[in-house]
């Protein structure tokens, strides 16, 4: 058990790195997912097809394969994902600016994969808005963009928040995979590092790592349960 105290800074560092990945990937996935969701409900058929294709591909592909694509495909395209070295941001999220590109690759893969689920969560929210609302907006002469902005999206937000939260929880769990793709020092890689190279007993390390993930996922899940119950009452 002493490993939990001796190596507390390693666990804390791993937790922080995993948290960084999750925050950045969540931002990326939310933005990209919103764009794809708008594509999927847009009045232009080719854009709809594009959105649907995106969701179909990324929802049915294991994240592992997406990660491999990012790790092998991007270098083949001659890119080290340097566009993610955003000047202000890499002061806080130091890994963004490192020369080893794996953190950025993992980030891209995780965002691309999660965006498909974010899109579906947002769309389910839009579908939950009563049809009369959008029809009324249309009969007032609002265009598609105005319709979304002033009528549908403000209401759909409520219905999407729970599915979105579940997607984010799933993403936090999925982020454990990046440790197996060359990102050094996140929680899951720490487990491997401490047990095989560090020679520490397995059980305490496993407990430490599990606690690290549970700190992120369980409170979020409990919060979602609360919101869901409240909404059920409100309805």
């Amino acid at each position, binding site marked *: 058990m002493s490993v939990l105290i001796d190596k507390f800074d390693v666990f804390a560092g791993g937790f922080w790195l995993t948290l960084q990945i999750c925050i950045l990937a969540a931002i990326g996935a939310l933005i990209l997912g919103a764009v794809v969701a708008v594509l999927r409900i847009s009045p232009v058929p080719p854009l709809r097809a594009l959105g649907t294709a995106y969701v179909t591909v990324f929802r049915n592909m294991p994240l592992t394969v997406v990660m491999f*694509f990012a790790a092998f495909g991007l270098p083949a395209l001659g890119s080290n994902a340097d566009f993610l070295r955003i000047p202000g941001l890499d002061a806080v999220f130091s890994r963004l600016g490192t020369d080893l590109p794996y953190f950025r690759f993992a980030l891209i893969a995780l965002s691309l994969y999660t965006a498909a689920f974010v899109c579906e969560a947002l769309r389910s929210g839009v579908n939950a808005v009563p049809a009369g609302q959008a029809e009324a907006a249309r009969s007032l002469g609002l265009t598609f963009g105005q319709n979304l902005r002033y009528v549908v999206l403000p209401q759909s937000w409520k219905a999407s928040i729970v599915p979105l939260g579940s997607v984010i929880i799933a993403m936090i769990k999925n982020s454990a995979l990046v440790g197996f793709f060359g990102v050094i020092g996140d929680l899951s890689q720490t487990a491997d590092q401490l047990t095989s190279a560090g020679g520490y007993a397995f059980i305490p390390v*496993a407990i430490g790592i599990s606690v690290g993930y*549970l700190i992120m996922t369980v409170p979020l899940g409990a919060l979602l349960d609360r919101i869901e119950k409240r909404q059920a009452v409100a309805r």
Partner: protein
Amino acid sequence: MSQQTSVLYDVPGPRQRRITLISSLIATVVVLVGAYFLIYRPLADKGQFSMELWGPLIDPSNENFSQVWERFGVGLRHTLTAAALAILSSLIIGTLLAVLRIQLKSLTRRRFTGLATPLAYLLRGLSVLLSVVTRICVEVFRGLPVVLTIFFVARGFPEFGVSFDNLWYLVIGLTVYNSVVIAEILRSGMEGLPGGQAEAAAAIGLSPAQTTRMILLPQAFRIMLPALISQLVVVLKDTSLGFIISYEETLNIGKQIIGVLGNPIQVYAVIAVLFIAANYSLSKLAQFVQHRLARGRKTAGTPAQQAPATALISQAEGAGGN
């Protein structure tokens, strides 16, 4: 669904359709030119489109073709074996866990009036304790990444001197996570049923166990079938995590092929297509089942239950999905 989305905008008129057509043609050209310079050129410069790299995968006359696909066949078989075993065991354990939690919930409300007071308190304490323990188990295993459960199983069992084949580590790791998720799906299905069902069962004298087995569980399975099938997609995707414990599933075979032929992008493209095909057909099956159930429910005159949100959530949790 098309009805649902078209609520948002008017049906495009001739002018709108013309604009759409012209602008999408222009956009296609722009995208194609962009793709040529940004994707095709760099890849072609590195020889990624040469038959040397693609040949073993798509050209039957290539000397390695039959061998490569034989290996892929082995990998697919292993993937499907692991997925089938994991699905079966998580369905069984998940059902048992769901029933157990429902039973414990009704037990904690029971007062054991016929018994001596200390014994009654003991039994009540015991059932409360058990339900707390199962609750904690569910929360913990649901909150852990499935990669880590697999990793912990593969590392942890040898610590205790128990060792299996890699297949079983993968199956156990997947089962631990997915059985908990399935248990929660079934439990929410049972709790979502109209209260009259359980009350009617009690009124005709069924015991709580009989009520669960004969009344609640079958209906929960029916309502939650779409969510369950999406969870199966998740399991199928998650078997690809077997590569971290070097179980020989499709992805790992792919890595071996890459080690020999040195064509990572091509092999991963083929694997992606294989997975997308398998999972897409499973998702379509889920949609079909959902449609059938929706139709059946309408004729039965019961209010439609909302399954899609749950289905979506459970699929998002796919790690391997993850």
